[in-house]
């Protein structure tokens, strides 16, 4: 009968050095609610400091708040997927991740088209330039706290494919910020909405992706150092 394997001394020492009881993580869907808490706060901030869009009456309640509800719901799904991605053996299938990101792009474009068809919005002389950077910057600013919250939750778990978790979290934060910022921005011209509001979502996704990739590299480097150290110590 083969002997039961025993942990090597180095491993036993590492385990013995930190044996504090740990609390099991709650499910990704429940942890996602932490990010959801940012939504009402961000809405209040936008309405208090920037104000409701000037064409809200023309749009009516469903077209003013509807896109926010849809984008917020989808962004929270993206965040939940990012958090699931950060738990070993809970990673969603790659097709599902790519599919959800695809749906996010479609929703972003569809609600821009629908809003445009419902209201001509505020006309500006050069829609591609006027207020473009301002909208971009404010939207990114709104997304950053959500992204930081997601990043904190992801890092507290164990992201195995951190780049995926990062891009999902970034896209979720970006879409959420877009939905909230649209409560204020009255420009519906697609030459303004698609490049500038879209760029804000994209940049937050890229920040997530880059952060995740950097985290992966850091983990790899640490592991390579440990392995090198161990192989040097082995006679």
């Amino acid at each position, binding site marked *: 009968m*083969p002997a*039961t*394997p*025993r*942990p*090597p001394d*180095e*491993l*036993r020492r*590492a*385990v*013995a050095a*930190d*044996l*504090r*009881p*740990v*609390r*099991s*993580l*709650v*499910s990704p869907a429940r942890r996602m609610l932490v990010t959801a808490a940012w939504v009402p706060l961000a809405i209040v901030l936008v309405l208090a400091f920037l104000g409701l869009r000037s064409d809200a009456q023309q749009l009516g309640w469903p077209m003013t708040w509807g896109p926010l509800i849809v984008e917020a719901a989808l962004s929270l799904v993206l965040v939940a997927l990012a958090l699931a991605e*950060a*738990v*070993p*053996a*809970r*990673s*969603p*299938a*790659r*097709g*599902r991740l790519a599919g959800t990101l695809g749906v996010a792009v479609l929703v972003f474009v569809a609600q821009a088209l629908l809003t445009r068809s419902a209201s001509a919005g505020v006309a500006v002389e050069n829609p591609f330039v006027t207020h473009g950077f301002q909208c971009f910057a404010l939207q990114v600013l709104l997304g950053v706290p959500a992204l930081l919250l997601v990043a904190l939750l992801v890092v507290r*778990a*164990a992201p*195995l*494919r951190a780049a995926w978790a990062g891009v999902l979290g970034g896209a979720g934060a970006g879409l959420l910020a877009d939905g909230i910022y649209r409560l204020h921005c009255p420009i519906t011209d697609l030459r303004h909405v698609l490049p500038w509001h879209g760029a804000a979502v994209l940049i937050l996704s890229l920040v997530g992706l880059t952060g995740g990739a950097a985290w*992966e590299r850091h*983990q*790899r*480097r640490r*592991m*390579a150092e*440990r*392995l090198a150290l*161990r*192989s040097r110590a082995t006679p």
Partner: protein
Amino acid sequence: MDDDREREAALAALMVAYQDGNVMAFEKLYGEVAGPILGYLRSLTRDAARAEDLLQETFLQVHRVRHTYERGRPVKPWLYAIARNVFLMYRRAAGRLLRHEGLADEDLPDVPVPPEVESLADRDHIQKALAQLPPDRREALLLHHVMGLSFQEVGAVLGLTAGAAKLRAHRGVVELRGILRGKAT
């Protein structure tokens, strides 16, 4: 089937005790799963010494992220997912140096053999045939047929749907049989 369920329940109980800070539970857990995980890592690295290193690294990771095990969920897929990630990190860190395409047959470590094909040839032939399978099929095949994970669990480890995991394992077995029959004739 009931044995599997009992074994899984025992592993889950050990994992919970380990999360509660019980060092004996960790040692028992290691005793229960280190062998199969080592076999899995050998099949991935095809380097016995490296697999031993990665086994230790896997358990260091397990210790670091033990809070991510959700009580009530199966332990094995969680462990295999960590082991697989350790291997992937190692492979990326080492880059081209690690490519084992040119590994000689005699260098192959003792990789577990699926019972489904054991009657077709001797162990040595099966191991060599396994080495010829595409890595993704070999991995799905070993996780299901040797490590005893369900397709749902294999999918969770590999980041696939259960259906995709089943398809990979099935194609692996068909290809393995083909290789072995080709060798026999």
